[in-house]
């Protein structure tokens, strides 16, 4: 087996030195009736070329040459080549969690840079080293707010990503934490502020909203913060599209920001690995879940970095820990750090503006087609928009697929009240040609209809 660095003679030599007659001696501690004696029923050992052929065939079976207008929490942005060059360096790729600071300064400094960039982008004081993804990050943020406030109720906007809400429900179900769901304004798609105001009480630990929300609409964060704060609740802002922060004002009124950083140079990879991260105001630091890297000095006064405030974590506080999280998404956070360094201060703004422009063009082009209209036009959007059509999406999406275009995702599975509504996303990688082609297909009423 090509990954195993031993010759048969060496194995014999080692067994002899151990004093074992055969390798079976070393497994005798497993009771005979539980020793597995046959071959595992898995595919036979394969050559590297066969493995590549297998996965290439699997990849080819997926649609690779389709234009796509899918978003909804997973975004297609251009990934600069150097991201993969750098994260595939063995010293990053094959290193463990940086517990031994003297020989992991590379990882530690990179995480410190990530924490700084996330804090800068979100307008928060501090950020952690990453969470699994945006959905678990949002759930952990709600638990964090519960610890900070000592309260046990959460108010959640229905325009938060439906899968994030499902994960939140899973996390809260055994924590005696009641949640109230707040709807959206039919005109703007924004959180219904009157309903929110009525729902937030002095028992509310947290208000959770997403911005841009699931419909692509940017929420009125200052107004929501005022409602939350006047009752002593914390405001958690979930951000599923991180690139939006290049053009959209940071949610500085929030107490906690939970962000999905996938848009920062992370491949879609059918939904993961992505990169969640929690950022917060400094006063809530002790209740943050996850790892944190801090700056310090060594014995000779050199600057260096260490994992710090670890007493919050499971390996020390065990059942009283802020979370059970251990492994996080470090290498993916490194991708994000490199992405943000490539684009930088000006680039992230320019990139965000290209997204705005594409989505603006696409929204206008698609909604101009007969029977189609734009929902929630009364509020600012980033690069997603909701289109309502007279024709059922199932019908026109087939026609789009025939033209090798994957159109917007149907919203009826989560929001049946919206009827024939679909959520479209146009990032910088979508071309005008693709938008025009989609609009044309949408306009074409099928023969016999």
């Amino acid at each position: 087996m090509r990954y195993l660095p031993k010759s048969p003679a060496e194995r014999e030599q080692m067994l002899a030195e151990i004093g074992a007659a055969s390798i079976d001696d070393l497994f005798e501690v497993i009771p005979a009736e539980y020793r597995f004696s046959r071959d595992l029923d898995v595919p036979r050992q394969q050559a590297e070329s066969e493995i590549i052929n297998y996965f290439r065939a699997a990849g080819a079976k997926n649609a690779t040459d389709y234009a796509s207008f899918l978003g909804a929490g997973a975004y297609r942005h251009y990934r600069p080549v150097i991201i993969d060059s750098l994260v595939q360096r063995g010293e990053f790729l094959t290193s463990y969690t940086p517990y031994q600071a003297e020989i992991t300064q590379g990882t530690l400094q990179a995480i410190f840079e990530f924490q700084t960039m996330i804090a800068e982008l979100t307008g928060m004081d501090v950020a952690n080293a990453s969470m699994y993804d945006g959905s678990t990050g949002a759930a952990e943020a709600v638990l964090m707010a519960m610890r900070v406030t000592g309260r046990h109720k959460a108010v959640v906007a229905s325009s938060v990503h439906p899968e994030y809400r499902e994960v939140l429900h899973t996390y809260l179900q055994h924590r005696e934490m009641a949640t109230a769901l707040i709807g959206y304004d039919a005109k703007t798609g924004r959180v219904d502020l009157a309903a929110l105001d009525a729902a937030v009480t002095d028992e509310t630990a947290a208000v959770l909203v997403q911005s841009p929300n699931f419909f692509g609409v940017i929420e009125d964060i200052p107004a929501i913060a005022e409602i939350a704060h006047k009752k002593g609740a914390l405001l958690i802002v979930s951000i599923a599209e991180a690139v939006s922060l290049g053009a959209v004002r940071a949610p500085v009124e929030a107490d906690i920001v939970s962000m999905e950083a996938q848009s920062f140079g992370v491949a879609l990879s059918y939904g993961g690995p992505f990169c969640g991260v929690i950022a917060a105001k400094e006063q809530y630091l002790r209740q943050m879940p996850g790892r944190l890297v801090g700056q310090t000095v060594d014995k000779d006064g050199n600057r260096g970095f260490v994992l710090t405030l670890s007493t919050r974590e499971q390996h020390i506080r065990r059942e009283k820990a802020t979370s059970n999280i251990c492994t996080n998404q470090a290498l993916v956070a490194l991708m994000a750090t490199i992405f943000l360094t490539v684009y930088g201060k000006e680039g992230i703004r320019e990139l965000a503006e290209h997204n705005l422009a594409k989505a603006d063009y696409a929204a206008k082009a698609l909604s101009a087609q007969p029977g189609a209209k734009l929902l929630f036009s009364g509020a600012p959007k980033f690069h997603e928009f909701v289109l309502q059509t007279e024709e059922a999406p199932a019908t026109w999406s087939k026609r789009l697929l025939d033209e090798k275009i994957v159109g917007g995702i149907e919203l009826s599975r989560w929001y049946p009240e919206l009827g024939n509504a679909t959520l479209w996303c146009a990032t910088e990688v979508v071309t005008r040609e693709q938008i025009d082609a989609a609009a044309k297909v949408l306009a074409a009423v099928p023969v016999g209809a």
Partner: protein
Amino acid sequence: MAYPTNYRYTREHEWIALDGNIGTVGITDYAQNSLGDIVYVDAPKVGDSVTANATFGSVESVKAVSDLYSPVSGTVTAVNEELKNAPDKINEAPHETWIIKVELADPAQINALLDAAAYEAFISEETGS
């Protein structure tokens, strides 16, 4: 380090000094020594109630957390704010550095605690020396 004879002690290594019905609470030299450099003290707020033998907070070093157990029941009347920025005071002078002051609900509870000699005997038993 000598254990002041006018203090009383818990088996969880807190000390309490009584003045009228106000008890001043800290942790012993033995406790700070076994914990090492203290980096953070999590204390209750003024007005919170504490219960004898129940936790009221914790002290942390880099790699360990130690719960604080209240020697008595009562209401917190003061919290040592200085520890927020200088938790190392506890390492420097454990018996002079207080964490909270408590108004005792029942001053007789003090009698259930160890005196200095009994506490010293207890810790030498614990360390096996």
